[in-house]
């Protein structure tokens, strides 16, 4: 029996990634990292800033996301996100830009606790990428 399922990542502009031979996906869900394997129960969840790790037969890939929603159903994983960047494409200058933006956001005083938490997450994740 095959252990593969389908993943589709879409952002508002286009279908970002479609893969049929995925073995495992680790997503930064709102309440902690979550690994998804084949035949996972149907689930809908939120993403917080973090790294999506896609393990597939044709190679592993990592993506940096800032937000999103995931839906898993009938071995189809859909990820909707407004900001997604492949970690491989994320060079130093881009990373620096994003980091600066996130830090500026985190240091604002009048934002809500949740926004602050999300901004802090962004900073943390961006720092950890190398």
């Amino acid at each position, binding site marked *: 029996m095959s252990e593969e399922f389908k993943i*589709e990542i*879409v*952002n*508002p*502009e*286009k*279908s970002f990634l479609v893969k049929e031979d995925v073995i495992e996906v680790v997503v930064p*869900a*709102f*309440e902690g990292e*979550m690994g998804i394997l084949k035949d996972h*129960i*149907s*689930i*809908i*969840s*939120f993403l917080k800033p973090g790294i999506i790790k896609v393990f597939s037969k044709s190679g592993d890939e990592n993506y940096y996301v800032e937000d999103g*929603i995931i*839906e898993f*159903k009938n071995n189809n994983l*859909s990820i*909707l996100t*407004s900001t997604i960047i492949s970690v491989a494409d994320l060079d130093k200058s881009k990373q620096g830009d994003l980091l600066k933006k996130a830090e500026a956001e985190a240091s604002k005083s009048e934002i809500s606790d949740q926004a602050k938490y999300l901004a802090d997450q962004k900073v943390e994740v961006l720092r950890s990428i190398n």
Partner: protein
Amino acid sequence: MASLDDLKKRIASVKSTQKITKAMKMVAAAKLRRAQESAERGRPYSEKMNNIILNLSNGISDKENAPKLLSGTGENKVHLCVVMTSDRGLCGGFNSNIIKKAKSYFSKILNEGKQLKIITVGSKGNDQLKRVYGDKIIENISFKESKNANYFDADKVGRIIIEKFEAGEFDICTIFYNQFKNVITQLPQAQQIIPLNNEEDQNNSDESYEFEPDEDEILSNLLPKNISTQIFKAMLENSASEQGSRMSAMDNATRNAGEMVDKLTIEYNRSRQAAITKELIEIISGAESL
């Protein structure tokens, strides 16, 4: 009959107009391809978003406490209409079609004695509406600077709408835009986005989902995003429609100019011939009288 010189000038001017419309058509055709592509690529996102929300709202346990963005305020007094048009003219009936649709909706609402508020996106809509409904327009948003429709702009509009909704400024929100069907046909659409109208396709998926965190929290986070997404979709459809409409309008203009040049050329040749004949007659009758 106009003099030969006048006709010549006229032909030259029509020809140069034709050149302009031809160039505009080419530009529109090139832009159309890009706009159409991005409209098509943007569809999966909004469709998936809709699906998820549908599944969520089916699964929600108590409808009474559902987020207001989904269920509405329970009243039906103040209508907010977001009319999305282009920033540029010369695109045939594109803007007028949206305005016509919107105006008929406006008069329906006003006849029912409800309050009307209008947000216009794009300057052409504002120009056409402010004469009659000037006092109803509460905001005019224009994205003249941004070349292509992008999500960031849509999000800005979405935020404005949500802010106003949360401040209790309206009960029902409808957006007006042109749906792109093909180059010749664009369908003006009125889509209600607050409260969300999902009744027509209630597929009873008995699928039970696991939610993390719980439904309410996901919904209340997702619904504002959905609004921006729907607006973004409308913007993409609109920009494809605009280019399509402009292309066919300019195509017609080019053809009309061609016909006009033909007609003028015939007239020119006839009057030239008439002038020659007249001169000949003069010469001959002059020679005869000698």
